[in-house]
Structure formats: C-alpha cells, structure tokens
C-alpha cells in the first residue's frame, strides 16, 4: 500500500488532508527507477487552485506520455502544514510518489500571477533546495519557471535556474533530451545551463548581465558570453488541433475551483484590449478544429465522470464554430445530467438563447465587462463594447426573464478622470432604467446590478507598459468617487458596488514591471513571513514595505514613473511576437482616444504575422 510522506498524526491535525495524499482519479504513477527524468511540476498556490489550472494538466499529461519522464505534482502547503513542516524540518514532497522534491531532476513552477512570488520561495525553502540559483550544487534539481509572469521573469531571476518563455508544448522535449545527454556526460551544472540556454525559448538568467544608469533605469542587458542568445523568442503552438491535450484530466477529491471538464477551444484573442497582457502575449489567435473538440468533450466527460463542462478561451464568442460546438454539447450531453457552462460570452441573441437552455434564468446573471465607464475611456483602452450594445443586450435579457447583471470595471486607467469614474454609476443606472421600462406586470420585482471594480496594473508587453501607476490613496479615492456616484443614482437601490483594497494593487505593480534588483526584497518579504499574498486573510502590506525598506528598494521607482519611450525594460530581451513599435503605436492611439480594429477586421501589423498561422492567415489561402 502507498506510503505517505506525512504521518497520520499530521494528516489528521491539518485542514483538508486530501490536498497532500495524491491518489486522485487519472493521476499517473510512474516507476521511479525505470524513468530517467523526474520532473516535479508545481503550482505555487493551494491545491484547490492549482488543480484547476489547465496548463499544468496539459504538461503533466504530455510529459508523462514520454516513457523516460516521471512527472509529478506539487502545490503550496497551506499555512497550517507550512508551520508543521518548518518545525519538524520535513521536506516538501510530490503527490504521486510522495518523494521529496529535492530528489527530482527538475522543479518546474508555473508563475501565473505576481502575488504568488512568496509562495514560490516557500516551495523552494520547504523543498530544502538552496534558495539562490547560484548556491545550488550538482545534486539539486534545476528550477525552471514558466507561465505568463515569465514574460517578465526578472524579479525572480535570483531563484530560478531557467525560465521557459511561451507555451510549454514546444521545447521541453529538447530540454529533456539535453538533460539525459548531460547527465551521462557528468559535466558541470553550469555546462548544462549553457547548453539549455541555446534551446529556443529557454532563458538562463545567470548568463546575462545587467548594468544600470544613474537614474536606476537599465543601461544594458547582455549575455555574458558568446553563443548565448541576446533575444529569447517565445514558443507557441501553431497547430492547435493536433497539439497534445489531456483527455484523461485529473479529478480531485476535494472541490477544486474548476470542478469540471475544461475544453480549450482557442488560444489568443483578436480584440486587442490595450490593458490585457494575455491578449498580446498569446497572439496570434489560433482555433482548434470543432470536430476534434467534440471528440475531446465526449472522452473527457467519460474519463472523469464530471457533471459539468466549460469552454476555455479569452473570448469564446470569437470562436468561429461556437454555434456548432455549443449546439452539439447541449444536444449530446444536456439530457445526461451534464451542466454546460459558457464563460466569456458576449451577450447577444445567440448567447441568450443558449444560456436560457443551459441555466436557470432566475438564478443566473448576465456579465458585462465594459472595463471603463465612459465611451471616451473605452476608446482609450480599446474595449470595443459600446453603451448601445450593453443596453441592447441587457434589454433583451431582461425581456427574456433575467434580473441580475454583473458589471466589471477597472479604475486607475491611463487618462482616467473623475467624469470617467462617475460614468460607471451612470451606466449601471441606465441598465436599471432599461429594466424598469418593462411593464410592471411582466417583470418580477427589482433588478440587481452589481458593479465590481479592480485597480488597473500595467503589464509588460502591453501598450500600457509605459504608463504610470498611482499611490494607494488615489485608488481608494477613485473607488469612493464611484461609490458616491452610485448613491446619487435614481435606481441606487438596485445597484450594489464592490471594490477591493489597494495595497495589493501597488505591490502587484512593483513586481509586474520590476527588475532583478527586487530579488533581495522578495527574499526579505518571505523571511518576514509573507506568504499567500493573493489571499486577503494573509496579505500583510507592512511586512512587504519593511522588506523594501530593509533592502533599499524604492517602490515608487517601479510604480509612479511614466517610463520614457526609449527606456530599456527588464523584459525587452524577450521576443513576444508583438513588436515594441506596435506597442508604442498602440500607446499613442490610446492617448489619442483612437480605436484599433480587431484582427479579423484588419491586420494592424503587430508583428506576430511572422509565425504564419492562426488568424493571421485566415481566409488567405
């Protein structure tokens, strides 16, 4: 019988022991002795979040399909177990074999959001691997990072041996082959890293030197020796349809955030919203064949026993075969007790018809993400949604029986004024007015409009990468303005407003566009006890500020500065497909309040045409 890394005593004392025992449906247990490459794949957050992540499921399945690879999973131990592991000096383990992470050849960490950076340090620390890449020996695993935050890996440069830039499906095979060759050659750790740095998409931070100007900006960012590429090109899948996909995804025992079959229908987004990093780095938009998706849907439901299936993409409505796919899912599975969930759908006649078939209208709500309150500001951020479209969609929905509307906005956007903020409340009110236009006898009571705002954080590889952020007080002032404006609306009783604390926003801003000098502050923050920063219960801003002060970092340098157009950014060594010229053009368009059409309407020459695939070559055969 399986031997667990944790004793009965520990497992029965902590919350949700099922997080740590493995054994889930469709988990893959390989023979440790018969595999050459042991890869511990980590999502640095709690199990329920990590298990919901599609990217890891794809790579876990793909890696394990190689006979010589044993890929296992690792998640962040919850603070209750963290404390016990530190006290008893228990090494962090992987779920399948329950073996210590330090016995693996690789520790791969997906970096999905900035607020998990201290969790990354926790994983390395609990794994009992030296924290700094420079302190690791030949017996330590290679730590490799990937995911969207790897598009600016610099704040984490001290802790990782390598980063993988782009989609994981492409270059890991070359890395594994190289590893086997290196392992038998008995050469040094540095030698492996030098060879790995030549694989497309692999970035080895220790092989690059950064110098700074007197004002703190980067002067030069260069490889330390010949043969190491100056530019790292993002890797991406060009044939989405035949690319590997896990038809037997893992099924956790405890309820994960994503407790359903997830069907990825496309990657990328044609829209070009100027605040959205995903919309830029996953370009070009690439669709999967609808017939293959139908087959996947069937197989995945069969292999998991899930009672729900959801589509995954940045903008499902832009998938060209959406109608066919959704009709198939409803006809094929709805009668068998399978729920169908359709996120990121634009509200129109088709989506309302579909939603009325798959949801209980009385309970479900419509979601709009105008992101900005005024048309002027929506033009700045290139969010193509107009007030007219929103009111029409909401109107049709109200007439169809819906009563609940959720509205998502951002505050602190470039060029934003008080008027733009107040327009949020105004828009909500107009939606309510539209609802009350329905004759009283035809509607069922009040409508419920919920406004949620988040604070905007400029991200690398977006047109707003030059933009300044604001002090915390400014963000809270923005939220107060919206709140006051909501209270002044005629239909204020039908409108609810939610907003968040601003401390996390500022910190996220520092890390998102930070450089490698932040490494020591990160370490100090972890040593101060920062952990699970994405969880408001645990986030402690004072500990972070203390860490910056101790390490001589000025947070304002990273957030309050509007960057010069010719500034060298820490992430400029990455070729993400979209060119810096395109981003500059788009920044200028934003400031000129000029809308850029989406990729299907017109090619805007962003740079990804060089990959010769996806939307760039649609209808061009």
């Amino acid at each position: 019988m399986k031997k667990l890394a944790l004793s009965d005593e520990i497992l029965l004392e902590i919350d949700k022991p099922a997080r740590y025992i493995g054994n889930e449906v469709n988990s893959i247990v390989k023979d440790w002795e018969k595999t050459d490459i042991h890869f511990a794949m980590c999502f640095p957050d709690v199990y329920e979040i990590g298990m919901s992540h599609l990217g890891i499921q794809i790579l876990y399945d793909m890696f394990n399909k190689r006979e010589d690879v044993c890929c296992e999973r690792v998640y962040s131990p919850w603070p209750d177990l963290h404390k016990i592991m530190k006290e008893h000096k228990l090494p962090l383990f992987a779920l399948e074999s329950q073996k210590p992470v330090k016995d693996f050849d690789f520790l791969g960490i997906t970096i999905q959001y900035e607020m998990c950076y201290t969790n990354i340090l926790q994983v390395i620390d609990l794994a009992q691997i030296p924290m700094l890449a420079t302190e690791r020996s030949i017996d330590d695993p290679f730590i490799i990072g990937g995911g969207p935050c790897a598009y600016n890996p610099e704040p984490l440069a001290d802790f990782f041996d390598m980063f993988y830039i782009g989609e994981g499906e492409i270059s890991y095979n070359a890395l594994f082959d190289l590893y086997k060759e290196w392992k038998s050659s008995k050469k040094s750790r540095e030698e492996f890293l030098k060879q790995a740095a030549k694989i497309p998409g692999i970035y080895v931070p220790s092989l690059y030197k950064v110098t700074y100007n007197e004002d703190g900006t980067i002067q030069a960012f260069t490889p330390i020796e010949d043969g190491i590429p100056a530019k790292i090109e993002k890797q991406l899948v060009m044939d989405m349809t035949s690319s590997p996909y896990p038809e037997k995804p893992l099924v956790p025992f405890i309820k994960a955030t994503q407790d359903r079959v997830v069907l990825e229908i496309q990657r990328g987004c044609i829209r070009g919203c100027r605040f959205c990093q995903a919309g830029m780095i996953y370009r070009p938009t690439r669709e999967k064949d609808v017939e293959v998706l139908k087959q996947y849907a069937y197989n995945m439901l069969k292999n998991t026993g899930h009672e729900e299936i959801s589509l995954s993409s940045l903008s499902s409505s832009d998938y060209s075969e959406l109608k066919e796919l959704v009709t198939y899912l409803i006809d094929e599975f709805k009668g068998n007790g399978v729920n169908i969930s359709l996120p990121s759908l634009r509200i129109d006649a088709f989506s309302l018809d579909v939603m009325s078939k798959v949801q209980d209208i009385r309970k479900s709500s419509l979601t709009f993400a105008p992101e900005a309150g005024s048309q002027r500001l929506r033009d700045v951020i290139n969010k193509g949604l107009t007030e007219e479209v929103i009111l029409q969609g909401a109107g049709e929905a109200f007439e169809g029986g819906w009563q609940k509307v959720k509205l998502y906005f951002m505050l602190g956007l470039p060029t934003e004024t008080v008027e733009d903020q107040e327009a949020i409340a105004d828009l909500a009110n107009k939606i309510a007015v539209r609802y009350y236009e329905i004759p009283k006898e035809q509607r069922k009571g009040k409508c419920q409009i919920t406004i949620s705002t988040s604070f905007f954080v400029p991200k690398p590889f977006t047109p707003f990468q030059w933009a300044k952020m604001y002090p915390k007080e400014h963000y809270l002032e923005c939220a107060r303005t919206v709140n006051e404006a909501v209270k002044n609306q005629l239909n204020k009783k039908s409108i609810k407003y939610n907003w968040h604390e601003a401390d996390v926003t500022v910190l996220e801003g520092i890390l998102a566009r930070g450089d490698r000098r932040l490494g020591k502050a990160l370490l100090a923050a972890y040593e101060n006890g920062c952990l699970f920063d994405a969880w408001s219960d645990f986030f402690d801003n004072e500990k972070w500020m203390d860490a910056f002060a101790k390490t001589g970092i000025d947070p304002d340098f990273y957030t309050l500065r509007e960057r010069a157009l010719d500034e060298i950014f820490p992430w400029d060594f990455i070729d993400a497909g979209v060119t810096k010229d395109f981003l500059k053009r788009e920044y200028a368009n934003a400031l000129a309040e000029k809308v850029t059409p989406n990729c299907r309407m017109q090619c805007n020459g962003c740079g990804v045409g060089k990959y010769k695939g996806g939307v760039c070559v649609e209808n061009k055969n």
Partner: protein
Amino acid sequence: MRIRIKFKKYGVMKFIGHLDIMRYFQKCMRRGNIDIAYSEGFSPHQIMSFAAPLGVGITSDGEYLDIEVNSTKSSEESLKDLNAVMLEGIEITSYRKLGNSDKKAMSLVAAADYELFIKENYEVPDVNFEAALEEYFHKPSEILITKQTKKSEKVMDLKKLVYDFKIRRDENNRPVFYLHVCTGSTDNLKPELVLSSFYEYLGLEFHPLSIQIHRIDVYGDINGKFVSLGEMGEIIE
C-alpha cells in the same frame, strides 16, 4: 429500481471525508456506466444516499449507499464495471437490488461494529485489559459518561448503547478492541468515546491519534433484530 452498494474504504482513502466520498461516487457512477436516475429540474442530481457517514481517518469493510437506477446489468457485471473505475482504497463488494418495501439504508441504521487498534508506532499500555473489561463493562449495571455536544453536555448510559465490548489479541499479541454500538441519528455513539471511557477507568491517558478505528459493518433494526445492511435485497442474475 433501487440498488444497495456495499464498499470497503482503506489505505489513503481514509483521509477523504464523507462529502468528498459522495462526490467521488457520483463521478464513479458516470465513469462506470451505471444507468443511475436523476432528479428533475435545472440542475438534476443523482438519486443517491449514504447509510452512515464515516469520519476522516476511519477505515471500513462495511459502507453502504443506495441508488436509484433506470436499468441495471447483473450484480456481477455491475460490480466489475464499478471496480474497474475505483481507486486503490475503495472496493465495491456488493451490488444488490432492494425490494419495494425495503427502507433506505440511511433510515434503517441502528448499530455498527468496530475494531479499534493501537497503531504500530504507539506502545501498548502495560495493563491487563481483559480483566479490567470485566470490571468496567460486564459487572456494572450502568456506565454513565458525559458527552460534550456543540451546545450542551449530555449524560449517557453506555450500558444501554454498547451492545458488545470484547478484546482479542492480534498476531503480535497487541489488543484489538471490538465494539458493537448504537448508531444512527438519535443515539449515535462514537466507538472512541467508549474506549476513552475505558482508558479513563484504567487511569490511562487516551490519545485519539494513537488509535486506528475500523468499521466492520453497519446494521439495520428489522423487527427488533440487527440485520447487516448488506444482507437486504437480492443478487441480480
């Protein structure tokens, strides 16, 4: 048509709590192609009910759930199909069709029996358990204990709720405590409560974590007699 399924829970699965076991079984029904019936409405759910929830950390040879099916294969085939989609730590041991008059397992539960072991990494206290049991359990006419509930304290007479208490020795001569106790919604008695009371009588400190509890079976009250829930219904040929 109603089916009663009996299963074992062992190994690492003992850490999976009752609610998650329910979710696990819902997915197993789909994977195992059981033609289970669904409730009506916008979010239909499988018609399934469990007999008696098992606490986290406890293993069992006798767990039960009742399901409603539209159609079914033979018991043998269904067992095979279900076990093909089980994980290590859960094994289906019986699949029987219930009669129309058979009550739901959940409402029948009246008693359960258990074995309690001192875990291998704990020393066996140096006392004569067998002799003490005679004095503690068999001789007195009542054994009063105070049970702490969320809201209040309740005095219970173990003599009325413990139907049997025996001690056997395993191959290493370590004691195994056998307990047959009242179970169900009204007078649910946890076996560790009895053992803890026995330890207290012996002047021993009781560490719940030092004991592995194993449920042997669950019984219904049929006309004043305890009948194993697994004996009800009939095998489908």
